[in-house]
């Protein structure tokens, strides 16, 4: 998994690519640490480059959500593709995140 932070007027965007899965937890911890440091801004995860997700990866998104405590509103999940979108729908994650497909 790789990630890249960008900031704009509306908040922080984290562009994630590769596999958001059981092997990504260490990298994702880095993302959360950084987001918590800049807490208060709206957060968008751009999932357009994520090729795979598993339940561990989904759990990571939920940990981020909990850590940010709703500051800046719902976390936005942008452009999930194929299996990623399927996972979000199956687990009804689209109720907890603002999914923009």
């Amino acid at each position, binding site marked *: 998994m790789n990630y890249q932070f960008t900031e704009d007027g509306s908040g922080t965007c984290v562009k994630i690519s590769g596999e958001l899965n059981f092997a990504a*937890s260490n990298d994702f911890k880095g993302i959360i640490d950084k987001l918590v440091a800049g807490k208060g801004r709206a957060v968008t995860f751009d999932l357009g480059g994520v090729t795979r997700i598993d339940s561990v990866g989904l759990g990571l998104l*939920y*940990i981020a959500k909990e850590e940010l405590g709703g500051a800046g509103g719902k976390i936005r999940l942008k452009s999930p593709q194929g299996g990623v979108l399927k996972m979000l729908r199956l687990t009804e994650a689209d109720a907890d995140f603002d999914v923009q497909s």
Partner: protein
Amino acid sequence: MALQRLRVLLVEDEPGDARLVISALRESRSPVFSVVHETTLAGAIGRVQAGETFDVVLLDLSLPDSRGGDTLARMQAAERSLPIVIMTGLDDPLVAEGALEAGAQDYLVKSDEPERTVARSIRYAISRKHAELERQALADRLAVEYERIAEELALARTMQFDLLPRVERLARIRARLGLAVDGFFEPSSNIGGDLWGCAEGEGGRAVFYTFDFSGHGVGAALNVFRLHTLISELEDRIADPAATLAHLNRVLFNLLPRGQYATMVLTILDTEAGTLTWSAAGSPSPILFDADGGARLLDSRGKPLGISASAQYTNRVTEFPPRSSLFLYSDVMLESTLPSGEMLGEEGLLDMVRGFHEAETGVDIPRLSGRFVEAVGSPLADDMTAVCITRLPLSGPVTPLMVVDAPVTEDLIGQVWGLGAAAHPFEETLPTGTAQPLVLASASPDTVAMGLASPYSGFFEIIDGRLVDIGSGCLDAVARGGFCLSVSTSTAWSSRLAVVVGSELRRRFGHHCDWESVDLCLGELIANSIIHGNLAIQSGMRETREGLDRYSEAIRLAMSDPARAAKRLELTAVPLPAGRLQITVSDRGAGFDFAHHDNKAISPGAKHGQGLALIHKLTETVTSLDGGRTIVIVVQGGQR
């Protein structure tokens, strides 16, 4: 010993006894004795240890500072090569004998007239000690020599076993020619005069032979090396067994001392023509099993090699279709006597061999040789060879072929065979018509991907140099038209397995399937097997940001434990009717209570424990085997 001067160390505390001995020794003119007198053992030992040399010690056992056998032992310890004559006060044969047994060379009874006996006793003791020392030196030399010979025999034995066809060669013959070969070889006296061998010829042909030199032991073994060398020089040119025997006979006739000879049978199996051509030089009659299991003895008349320069040999031909077997053996199998006192003979052997023959697999050599040795008792009277060559059925179960991209050790090949597969060196072209070969290699992203891609149907990782702990489902899956993967946990962790497998599934079975679901299932199954199965990490810690650190650390620790990192993770995929796919993922962890977790529904927002519920939702069926270590899913063909 004439006109010799002999130095005598007299150890005696009784002045009277000492005087008597000294004066007796002065009487002697030939040899002349010079006497040094000590009254204590310490004094005597002191002189010896100070480097004074003596030809003999006259030793009283009862001294102020030592008594009895102790006196003798301490004196001997001071100087091993000194002859010792014990002086006893009493004419007690028990004391004297005890002293002789303990290593003294002679004894004197003090009450005897010393002038008559002492000189003679000294001379006797000296010559006896000399003889002893010489014997000891000889025994030492012999021991060294014996050890050297034993070492050389052991080496020769190893070398002789090295002449036998190697497992790799047999595996190649099996893969290329469809000939299953197994042999038993046991020299009777460490090394012997028997050997069997094989060679691959052109155009679907293979050569097999056995020979047996007269006699056994070192001489016969040397002849074995000679003949093996001669045959090796011919190896790929053996097209006419009779002509080859005639050639070998001429060379051996000039080489062998008179009276030495060899019996031999040389066969060519032509798998394209379906024939067996053989020529014999007085060997025991080979046993041929035809395709229906009928057994008969083949004519093996012919003059033994090395007896007559002009001997001629005959080629004989018979059919050798698939499911035929040829059994070659040495004469010990005919000539050994049973406990009843009878020789086994051809009929007896035929009966015994029949009992271990199966049409598909030939004669079970390990069991047959075990049974034979048990029946005739060991040690065997002569060298024993038993070889069976079987033409495998053309149809029916195909032996999977493992292409080995690693140093091909005998151990590894044995492990491949243990799986019911054959090993094939990577650098060699695959035999034509090989269906679904597999790759056996150390893991790298390249080798794993190669094993999954055409023409291969699976990848087996060599872990710690070995191919062990392979699940039986792997080769089953391949036989059913699928593929398989068996890798270590560390490879599974680092090689993006779900991605590699997912794309291979699309390539092979790409026409119709819900690939998104398959990908999601693969991800869940592989993650579960690695993390919860083989690494035995609980998922509960992955609840919070801090928990993530503990989780990462737990994985790092588990991966650095070689036992856990080396545990196998296996995956198979098999096409089912109606475009469905069966995917199986197994680990070597503790398993889990599948039934307990099986009924769970997806709980939105949960940060772990969702995997199985997800899989349920995405598949037609989910089942568990082996206490939760294996999960089998079936996914439907066509879009959901």
